[in-house]
């Protein structure tokens, strides 16, 4: 398919879409589906019947999962051909279908209406999620009509692999899986390897509990990820890609399979893409429930059909990766940014965000927060804006206590740091990490020691058992934390726990062990009082003043150990 053919195809689909006056979109992402979106879609389809003026379709995640099932109606204004108005309905049931269809040419149904002027929608900036909730993820033509594959075809026909690399470097994009490594640097390392068999892997093993960004991207806009992978393959000289995806995401797997079939049929994937010399095919590999497989060397072992155990690095996958060949591994969200960067240019992307963290980031808001769901915001926004303004704050009149970012590798950030900008470096400075984007808000009802124990139990369970510090250390730390929670511990146990934290993080083989103590360290740093209150030999801890002083001293200690 050439550039002009793609443009013709897109124009044709757009014209077709404008033929119907109303477009009804029903969110069919996992959150809304479990609240009965499928019945709503059927109900609406039944009501509309064969009316050519109305087009009903299932779409991907609209973001505000708390108010699901969501239905959006876009109607062309009577006066003009292009302007349109949008109405969003929340908590729709199948019984509401009739009222909604009846209201199409009249006033909207007020009782179901959800305002789109609220900060939750108004403050977002969508790049990765630009099509999410708008296009039907199971139809490639809808993606193409939304300028999909335009970046790929342009790159293949007009840019060299070096040009693509240059744009990615200029964008300043950093890995969205949590590490924050510069994507351009990673790509050029693989590109510099001698020609031969190379691989591109899309890491969709979103194992962090509390994170569902990748799932939403794959379910709502799978072609975007495929396009990103082919572009990566073109830039680094690979002809084969793997998507390693969790088996816990059946809907995402199904949509990805469909997307691969459709793209292959359109000649956008497979042999001689767009009649150029580039061939690239993509295979899906299922995970089987092992958190450690999110680590790149463990992930490759799993694709090779072995136990998912990491190995020491170097050699890095860029030099010696899958089946011993140079391999590029990127996270779903990283790859999903690529088509937009190629389409609009690296400078456009670099204009968003902060000095060292460019672009936007998708976050999953969950826990004790009003507007649970999925958001995409520019880097550098403050945590307070995310939690209080966009997220609507803590419900039921409770007070905010901490926000957990980065899953089992991250930490808990207390109230005093809410005005810090969200970027890779700031979050690391306060003892947490950006992580893949899960944000879990906790109110006063959560005990921080129990939260630390929860994460340690997770790491203990998920430790692959290869290296001793992680296998034995997480187990010991879990039992110490359990002892503290059950108020059977003494200050010696706490000292031992802190010692173990240092040892495990300094000597473990892979990221899982190295970061496993983070939730303990960060809760100790900011909520030490809660630990001490549970110790047998210490009287009830002193005032908040004393607590803060301790927080400061332990903060400087952590800095020294770094």
């Amino acid at each position, binding site marked *: 398919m050439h550039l002009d053919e793609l443009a013709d195809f897109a124009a044709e689909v757009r014209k077709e879409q404008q033929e119907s006056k109303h477009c009804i979109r029903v969110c069919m992402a996992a959150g809304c589906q479990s609240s009965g979106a499928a019945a709503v879609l059927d109900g609406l389809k039944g009501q509309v019947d064969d009316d050519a003026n109305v087009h009903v379709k299932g779409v991907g995640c609209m973001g505000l*999962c708390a108010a699901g099932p969501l239905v959006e109606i876009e109607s062309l204004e009577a006066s003009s051909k292009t302007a349109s108005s949008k109405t969003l309905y929340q908590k729709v049931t199948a019984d509401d279908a009739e009222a909604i269809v009846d209201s199409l040419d009249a006033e909207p149904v007020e009782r179901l209406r959800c305002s789109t002027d609220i900060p939750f929608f108004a403050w977002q900036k969508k790049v990765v999620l630009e099509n999410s909730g708008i296009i039907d993820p199971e139809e490639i033509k809808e993606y193409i009509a939304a300028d999909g594959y335009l970046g790929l075809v342009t790159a293949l026909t007009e840019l060299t692999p070096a040009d693509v690399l240059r744009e990615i470097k200029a964008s300043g994009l950093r890995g969205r899986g949590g590490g924050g490594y510069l994507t351009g640097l990673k790509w050029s390392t693989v590109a510099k390897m001698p020609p031969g068999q190379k691989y591109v892997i899309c890491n969709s093993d979103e194992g962090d509990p509390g994170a569902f960004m990748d799932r939403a991207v794959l379910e709502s806009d799978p072609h975007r990820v495929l396009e990103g992978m082919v572009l990566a393959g073109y830039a680094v000289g690979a002809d084969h890609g793997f998507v390693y995806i969790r088996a816990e995401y059946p809907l995402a797997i199904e949509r990805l399979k469909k997307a691969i079939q459709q793209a292959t049929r359109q000649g956008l994937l497979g042999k001689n893409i767009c009649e150029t010399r580039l061939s690239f095919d993509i295979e899906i590999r299922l995970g089987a429930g*092992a958190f450690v497989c999110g680590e790149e060397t463990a992930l490759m072992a799993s694709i090779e059909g*072995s136990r998912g155990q990491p190995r020491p690095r170097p050699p890095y996958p860029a030099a010696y990766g899958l089946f011993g060949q140079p391999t590029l591994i990127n996270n779903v969200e990283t790859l999903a940014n690529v088509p937009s960067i190629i389409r609009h240019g690296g400078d456009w992307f670099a204009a968003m965000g902060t000095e060292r963290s460019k672009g936007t980031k998708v976050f999953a808001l*969950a*826990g004790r927060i009003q507007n649970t769901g999925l958001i995409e915001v520019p880097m550098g926004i403050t945590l307070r804006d995310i939690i209080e303004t966009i997220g609507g704050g803590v419900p039921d009149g409770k007070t905010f206590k901490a926000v957990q970012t980065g*899953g089992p590798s991250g930490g808990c950030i207390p109230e005093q740091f809410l005005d810090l900008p969200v970027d890779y470096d700031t979050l690391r400075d306060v003892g947490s990490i950006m992580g893949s984007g899960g944000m*879990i808000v906790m109110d006063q009802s959560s005990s921080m020691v129990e939260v630390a124990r929860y994460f340690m139990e997770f790491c203990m369970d998920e430790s692959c058992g290869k290296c001793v510090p992680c296998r034995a250390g997480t187990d010991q730390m879990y039992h110490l934390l359990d002892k503290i929670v059950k108020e059977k511990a003494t200050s010696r146990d706490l000292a031992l726990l802190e010692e173990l934290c240092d040892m495990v993080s300094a000597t473990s083989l892979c990221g899982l062990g190295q970061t496993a103590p983070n939730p303990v360290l960060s809760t100790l740093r900011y909520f030490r009082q809660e630990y001490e209150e549970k110790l047998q030999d210490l009287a009830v801890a002193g005032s908040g003043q004393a607590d803060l002083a301790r927080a400061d001293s332990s903060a400087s200690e952590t800095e020294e150990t770094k």
Partner: protein
Amino acid sequence: MTLTVQRPKPPSEDKRWKMIDVAMRRQGYSPHALIEVLHAVQNAFGYLDDDSMTYVAESLGLPLSKVYGVATFYHLFALKPQGEHTCVVCTGTACYIKGAGDLVDGIKQRFGVRLGETTEDKKLSILSARCIGACSIAPAAVIDGKVHGHLSVDELLARIEKVV
């Protein structure tokens, strides 16, 4: 002269072995496809037993120890038959904060089984998932493949009783 590879015979006449054979053939009997093949076996039979692991090992030319090692490494592979119905309680962070622990306790009180166990009448298995990615509707559980969100203990028990 043609080179023919002797493939082992399936352990029984069960027609489901045909599906396993198809899955292996599609992957060219590559040892790398082990995890894919084990998924196929579990989909067909519900769990992995000694016979099926031996058959897969011989077909892919792998030692049984390797197959057993992989099957026991990953949480999703079950080596024991599951109950007729399954209820997967999500114990991810968001669900934990919103009270997944109460759900687990409620199930134990009503059905007498803990996470990872199956009722004596083999009707119901209770499993846990590390996160099913339905954090925005926490606490969540998956009953026979269908996700339910915003659950209270009573609601979950009622939904389980409906299927069992």
